[in-house]
């Protein structure tokens, strides 16, 4: 219990630090939202609009401390403010338009990558020296190519040249969104390529980690005992070795689930996928402080929550963490 209370206090402190950084970082960037607006509209808004924009965004010369307090108190009220670059849409509306795309695309890709990668790791660790070992350099190779480059190549060859997949977007432009087959088919069609590139580039990490843990576990006494008892090799692999080896990987998985909401920024930019990563990129381009803060806050909270869950899981799974000394 003391352990849990300490963890909760730690999380509160981390959250405060993150929220404060969240406030500071956008304001340290060059430029300001009004300049960004003029750059964006390239002469299509009159010079006199400066005054109007300043009024609209409520940008006044209030001291940074008073801005900070306003920010904290509106956060406490669950108010993320109105986005500058999507004005008058609220930050919440913009995030909610993007979140489902990201959550499903990146979430599914992360889960597939984890499940397949871990399974491959278990098998290649168990049957080490077999042909499966040759998968390792291949997957690590794809993992080590800069993702941006890899994604662009995939988009160029598979979508632009071969036309196997749509080049960008999340669904056909005229497909109405709803629970119907044409939408599901279109969304799936658009998701395969971006999700595929994420899986291919991240699977190596899961596989390598799991394989190494399997090899370590195989030398453990309980595995030797299980073998001596004459249990089937399949049962030893799954129920004795893999079950113990997977513990550290599970913690990493919990964290990467937390990062799902940040969207894979690079994926979403390469494939123009309208998720949170794309929104964050737009927010940064337009000096949209409220939107940046909103997205960062989402990411922070999700990562902290996932971490906390991982902590809880550890407490449940590993008795040693319950000891206080």
């Amino acid at each position, binding site marked *: 219990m003391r352990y849990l209370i300490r963890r909760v206090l730690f999380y509160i402190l981390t959250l405060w630090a993150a929220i404060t950084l969240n406030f500071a970082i956008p304001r340290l960037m060059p430029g300001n939202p009004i300049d960004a607006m003029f750059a964006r509209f390239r002469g299509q*808004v009159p010079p006199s609009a400066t005054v109007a924009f300043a009024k609209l965004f409520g940008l006044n010369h209030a001291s940074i401390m008073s801005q900070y307090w306003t920010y904290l108190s509106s956060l406490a009220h669950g108010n993320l403010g109105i986005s500058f670059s999507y004005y008058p*849409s609220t930050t919440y509306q913009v995030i909610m338009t993007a979140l489902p795309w990201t959550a499903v695309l990146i979430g599914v890709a992360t889960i597939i990558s984890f499940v397949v990668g871990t399974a491959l790791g278990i098998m290649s660790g168990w049957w080490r020296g077999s042909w499966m070992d040759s998968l390792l350099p291949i997957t690590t190779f794809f993992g080590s190519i800069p993702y941006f480059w890899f994604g662009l190549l995939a988009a160029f060859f598979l979508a632009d040249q071969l036309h196997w997949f749509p080049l960008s977007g999340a669904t056909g432009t005229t497909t109405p969104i709803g629970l119907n087959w044409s939408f*599901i088919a279109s969304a799936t069609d658009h998701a395969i390529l971006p*999700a595929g590139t994420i899986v291919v580039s991240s699977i190596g990490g899961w596989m390598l980690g799991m394989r190494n843990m399997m090899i370590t576990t195989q030398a453990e006494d309980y595995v030797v005992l299980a073998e001596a008892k004459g249990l089937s090799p399949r049962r030893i692999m799954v129920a004795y070795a893999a079950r113990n080896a997977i513990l550290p990987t599970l913690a990493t998985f919990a964290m990467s689930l937390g990062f799902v909401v940040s969207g894979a920024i690079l994926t979403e930019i390469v494939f123009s996928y309208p998720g949170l990563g794309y929104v964050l990129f*737009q927010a940064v381009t337009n000096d949209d402080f409220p939107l940046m803060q909103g997205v960062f806050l989402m990411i922070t909270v999700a990562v902290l929550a996932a971490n906390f869950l991982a902590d809880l899981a550890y407490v449940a799974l590993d008795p040693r963490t319950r000891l206080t000394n």
Partner: protein
Amino acid sequence: MSRNRRLVSAAGAVLAGLFAITACSTSPGSSTPTSGGANHVILTVVGNTGGPQPRTFNPYLSTSGINALWGAAGMIYEPLVQLDAVKPTVSYPWLAKSWTWSNDNKTLTFHLRSGVKWTDGKPFTSADVVFTFNMIKKYPALNTGGIKFNTVTAPNPLTVVMTFAAPSFTQFFYIAENTYIVPEHIWSHVKNPTTYQNPHPVGTGPFELASFQPSTMLLTRNPHYWQPGLPKIYGLRYVQYSDNTTAIEAQENGQVDWAGGPIPDGQKLYVDRAPQYNHFWYPPTGIVSILPNQHVWPLNLTAVRKAISLAVNREEIDKVGESGYEAPLTSATGLLLPDDQSELDPAYQNADLTTNVAEAKSLLLKAGFKMDSNGLMALNGKEIKLTLGDPSGFADYMTDAQIISTELKKIGIAVTVQGLSTNGWFSDIATGSFQMTLMWSNSATGDGYAVLDSLLDYKLTAPIGTSASGGDYERWDNAQTQTFLSDYQDAPTAAGRQQALDGLEGIMVNEVPVIPLVGAADWSSYSTRKVTGFPSPSDPYDAATEGTPVGEVVALHLVPRS
């Protein structure tokens, strides 16, 4: 493989479920036939590119979905007067049938059209106009044109009288064309129009909202539109593309009928694919110039600016940098000829922009510069070394800058081209911490005064180090210029305005405060597969833009092919 496919399909199903919960889409059942004879022609339109937009139809905010992504405010809402975007002297009476200036351009009277109805059936009257302008007066955040309203009144249901604190002739564009009239019976209940999302727009325009989703929306014909028999097309389907590459690809594949934005190598990749249908027309509405920072030596010397202007090859910039889409400017006055011919002072009829390297060199030598052993012009041992910065994302500007750098080398001026981030670049420009940059002028109105005002008016800028987002980023500070500008604003007659404009043209020719290069094009392209009647060089009734508010004029000219 089959397993993976199932998983991904499951993902699609979850997505659909999530959207059913979060998205607020209007009745999907209201889909309309896309093909069904000439009476049912629906054009697919791409306004701007960007991410999906929440349902925001506030016509006054340039960032709300209807403007920032769809560019469709003008299809639903209408202004009092439509001005030709290419020839601003040409105007089309719209919700106002006629108008008169009086009292030294401090009073403006509009006579409204009768028989106009809002799409909810209520009649349009002068009360709506009065309400609209009083709202803009009350909320400076909506007054992007900076109109100095005094009073707005309606002596009768079809007349509106506005009085201004100062002569406001130059603001006619912002008053009459750039202000959409909204219904009083709806907007008077709005608590704060600056944050109002206006999810169910009611206007007087030729189209009304039929269905909406963050990534596509359908506007269909307003059956009670005041121009009888118009519009002839049934609807406009707006589609969202997150980036230009895919939008252009869709256009090249014939999936889009009408779009803004330039198409690189458009003749080959767009027009030649279906020469009988595909067209683009990029008339200039503003100008692109080199802004020389007046606080940087030797750009503060007129001789150096003149030499730079003589050294650059504008044809090369148009041909190589701008793919031939932005025609070289011909007049040193900065006016766009032949569109602005009527505004040109005959004295500067022959003040042509030409390339003459020898003359440029001799200008510098006359000013005391000497060519040194490095091949650079130097004054008292100080060489001319300058930087020319622009966003590295503006590919055309970067190519232009390289061309300029090569050409200035010939007259002994070393120019380093800097590629910057868009925000960093604009922030540098706004605070005056740059040496030279390529930039557009105000192209909102397209008339000569608006262009020169945005380039030269010191009132729009701020001292070096202070951020200025208005104009005159090069910090041109000249008493004579300010006199001409205020004379133009205050002049009670057209002759008086022309006299002041002549003065500004003289400043451009003799002092070269900025170096005009090429016209800034209004990008738009269209396919005549389904309809005819788009503007073209042979029928230039307006710009071909789908954007606001001009797009409405074009949409009303479109006739379905039978």
